[in-house]
């Protein structure tokens, strides 16, 4: 298929439709407004339904209803709105429903800013809702990946019957890049025989529910859900390793920041310093196994994030298992790290660990 130039927020909508999503429930918030706007324009044309909900709380609960009815459904928002959706995400995980949730992150805490940020890493990977649940989290670094992983997210959601999060940021949402809607292989997905579609008198009623009043029953549900998470940890980890060979310093960065970090790696190379990158594409499950590829030449790791003090760095520490010193460079509030600043931070770290 030919490439088309598209804004991230519209591309995510187009990708969802391409993946068979005909239902979208959202609420306006910058910097993701083009997603609901695009869906409100396109979904009626294909016999789907778009609802501008009264709040993010309502939107995610509409997603719960539609997912329970067995259709492919998506919602999108940005940080404060995703905070409000946490209740519903927990219920969706508990009721084992598939859906796709897009977060185009902006600065926080509170109302924060409308510029790009990566300060919802904890919210995405630890979950802001109650209970022992996880969401598969894809962190695309460009609009093409945004399209690819949004489409993949629908298959994964259906396969695991679990919410899948696509974690972008304001920059990826607003940026225009040439993209291609690739024909992907159809995944062999199980029949949604659990959906509430009306019994037609032909089967026992289906019940979509996360309540288990008896403790042993809830534990059994949690064990069943955990087994899915263990399968995801085994099968769904995706990452990119970049110029790791002979690297003295290995950066860990995802999304927008990973692109800037690649520029920093080139600048360091010009100065004769070998640097590499581990780029998690799934933030949960985190690519712990990527850290086994770190060469013996490496003297330090550095987590680079659009976050004050770092959030992903906690996972870097877990994956590092105490082997190498770990530095951090980050900007927050909508400020974007400059390649040169990353270079300086890296040189300082290397100077310190020599």
């Amino acid at each position, binding site marked *: 298929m030919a490439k088309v130039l598209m804004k991230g927020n519209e591309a995510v909508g187009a990708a969802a439709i391409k993946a068979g999503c005909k*239902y979208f*429930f959202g609420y306006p918030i910058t910097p993701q407004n083009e997603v609901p706007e695009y869906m409100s324009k396109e979904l009626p044309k294909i016999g789907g*339904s778009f*609802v501008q*909900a*009264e*709040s993010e*709380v*309502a*939107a995610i*609960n*509409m*997603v*719960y*209803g*539609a*997912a*329970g*009815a*067995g*259709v492919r*459904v998506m919602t999108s928002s940005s940080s404060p709105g995703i905070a409000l959706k946490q*209740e*519903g995400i927990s*219920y969706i995980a508990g*009721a084992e429903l598939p859906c796709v949730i897009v977060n185009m992150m902006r600065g926080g805490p509170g109302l924060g800013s409308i510029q790009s940020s990566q300060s919802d890493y904890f919210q995405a990977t630890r979950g802001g809702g109650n209970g022992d649940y996880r969401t598969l989290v894809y962190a695309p670094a460009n609009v093409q990946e945004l399209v690819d992983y949004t489409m993949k997210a629908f298959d994964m959601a259906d396969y695991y019957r679990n919410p899948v999060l696509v974690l972008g940021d304001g920059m990826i949402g607003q940026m225009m890049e040439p993209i291609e809607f690739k024909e992907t292989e159809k995944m062999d997905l199980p029949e949604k025989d659990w959906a*509430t*579609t*009306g*019994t*037609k*008198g*032909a089967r026992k*009623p*289906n*019940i*979509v*529910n*996360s*309540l288990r009043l008896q403790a042993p029953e809830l534990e059994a549900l949690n064990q069943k859900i955990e087994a899915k998470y263990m399968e995801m940890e085994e099968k769904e980890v995706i990452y990119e390793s970049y110029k790791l060979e002979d690297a003295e310093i290995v950066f860990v960065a995802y999304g927008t920041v990973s692109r800037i970090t690649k520029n920093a790696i080139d600048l360091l190379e010009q100065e004769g310093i070998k640097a590499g990158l581990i780029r998690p594409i799934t933030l949960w499950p985190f690519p712990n196994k990527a850290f086994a590829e770190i060469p013996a030449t490496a003297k330090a790791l550095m987590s680079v994030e659009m976050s004050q003090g770092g959030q992903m760095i906690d996972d870097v520490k877990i994956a590092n298992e105490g082997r190498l010193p770990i530095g951090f460079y980050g900007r927050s509030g909508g400020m974007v790290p400059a390649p040169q600043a990353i270079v300086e931070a890296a040189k300082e770290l290397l100077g310190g660990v020599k």
Partner: protein
Amino acid sequence: MAVVFNKTQGLTEKEFHYCPGCTHGIIHRITAEVLEELGVLGDAIGVAPVGCSVLAYDYFNCDMNEAAHGRAPAVATGIKRALPDKVVFTYQGDGDLASIGAAEVVHAAHRGEKITTIFVNNAIYGMTGGQMAPTTLVGQKATTAPYGRDESLCGQPLKVSEMLATINGAAFVERVAVDTPANIRKAKKAIKKAFECQLEGKGYAIVEVLSTCPTNWGMTPVDAISWLQENMMPYYPMGNLRNPWEVE
């Protein structure tokens, strides 16, 4: 021998867990009978609330969803948009609908979602042990209003039906009670109309049912019925507030 009463197909075999004298059971039965009589059980998808009727998903003999507290109208919206030909209903208490879920019900009505709501007003939070609800009467004692509802601090109880009747998308709004056999018959009629309103695509429909909570009111079932008649009925007048067939 002629059969004069049969348990409706609209209910499962599960035994209700409701307290003796609680009118949730009656409301379940007449709702289920309506679904059966309209021949829509196989197309019905219900949404249970959080509250004493949380287990309604085990009682209604049709596909059911269990919603988060107050979110049933949003969940029902999602279902109805995905499956517009199905018959979608919510069953909600007054804490669920009038307090935490006030936004969801107002906007489901406002959008004119073609869904039906059975709203059980027992003037208290039953499940959590008798706390004050937005519908608790002035002076009525509750575990979080030990001196009785103080109007100057808590306001007057919310009249949900009157409020929703100001919204054009709410095509059918009626308040009923289940205190006497005659009123139960009227309540059932209203519930039937509320489903017909959905079947004819006219808009959102809600039936508010005045109901008892003998346990948390601290009364015998008989006294609870009298209390409902003497205290709730004057403040919450019964009758139809919106009827799509009259408008035409």
